[in-house]
């Protein structure tokens, strides 16, 4: 005969299974903080060493290829750190990092990112360098918003903030790099810290 405690436990298990089978909860807050630091460093190097600061949509810079290399490097570091820290957190939670939920999260994030990535490369090739910052913010925001259904719900707001910053910077191109540093750098650091204290203790 089951006791009341057993039924409460049943309900707890049902809720946990529903959550576990739809949401990937091994994302680490630290990954956000680190991504923010890489982004700030990248923006500073681009501005300081390569004098890269587009003031209009069609913009040329002698160091453009270096700036692109730098941007790709920042992206790889951020993704690498996120994967490593998620793997560590999943391991601690006794979860596999590569499961049906993480695959769904990844697909939903990758499609907007790839679409944006190709568009940005096409526009760069045509000289619309000033759109680099607004469009990376915009498509990253869309990807995060889309992915938020498959991980912590708070990611939705992170996505909306980045979309907003992307749109603002597409109007004020001259502040593009600054808003990029704000979105990818400062917002990530704040968000990562918040998520770390809210969830990483689990």
């Amino acid at each position, binding site marked *: 005969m089951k006791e009341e405690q057993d039924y409460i436990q049943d309900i707890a298990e049902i809720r946990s299974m529903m959550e576990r*089978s739809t949401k990937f909860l091994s994302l680490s807050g630290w990954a956000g903080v680190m991504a923010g630091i890489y982004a700030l460093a990248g923006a500073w190097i681009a501005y300081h060493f390569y004098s890269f600061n587009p003031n209009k949509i069609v913009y040329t810079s002698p160091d453009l290829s270096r700036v692109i290399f730098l941007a790709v490097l920042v992206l790889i570091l951020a993704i690498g750190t996120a994967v490593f820290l998620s793997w560590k957190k999943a391991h601690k939670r006794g979860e596999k990092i590569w499961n049906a939920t993480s695959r769904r999260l990844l697909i939903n994030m990758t499609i907007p990112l790839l679409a944006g990535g190709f568009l940005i490369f096409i526009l760069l090739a045509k000289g619309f360098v000033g759109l680099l910052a607004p469009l990376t913010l915009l498509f990253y925001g869309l990807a995060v918003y889309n992915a938020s259904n498959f991980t912590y719900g708070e990611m939705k707001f992170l996505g909306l903030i980045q979309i907003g910053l992307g749109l603002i910077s597409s109007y004020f191109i001259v502040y593009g790099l600054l808003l990029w540093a704000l979105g990818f750098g400062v917002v990530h650091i704040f968000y990562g810290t918040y998520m770390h204290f809210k969830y990483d203790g689990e």
Partner: protein
Amino acid sequence: MKISIDDLHKAFESRVRLGIMSALAVNDSLDFTSLREYLDVTDGNLATHLKKLEKEKFIRVDKSFINNKPNTSYSMTPEGKKAFEEHLNVLEQIINSQKSE
């Protein structure tokens, strides 16, 4: 209305079967491997519980081939959904009635 323990469906007595139904309630369909990962049970154990749910017509089994490998996916039938929802209602009422006593 008097709620009794007898209203709870026998098929949901096992935690594994309850877990399978919970996962299928929020996913359109799941394959065998995904279910095994979520539930953390052995192949044989999972297969037995899935068979029982299939017999009750609570889940639907679809066999197909992906890259020449057999793939079995499971989804909830309308009957399964109804039974699971009723089970949740009864659980809730049992807990509520015991709280108010």
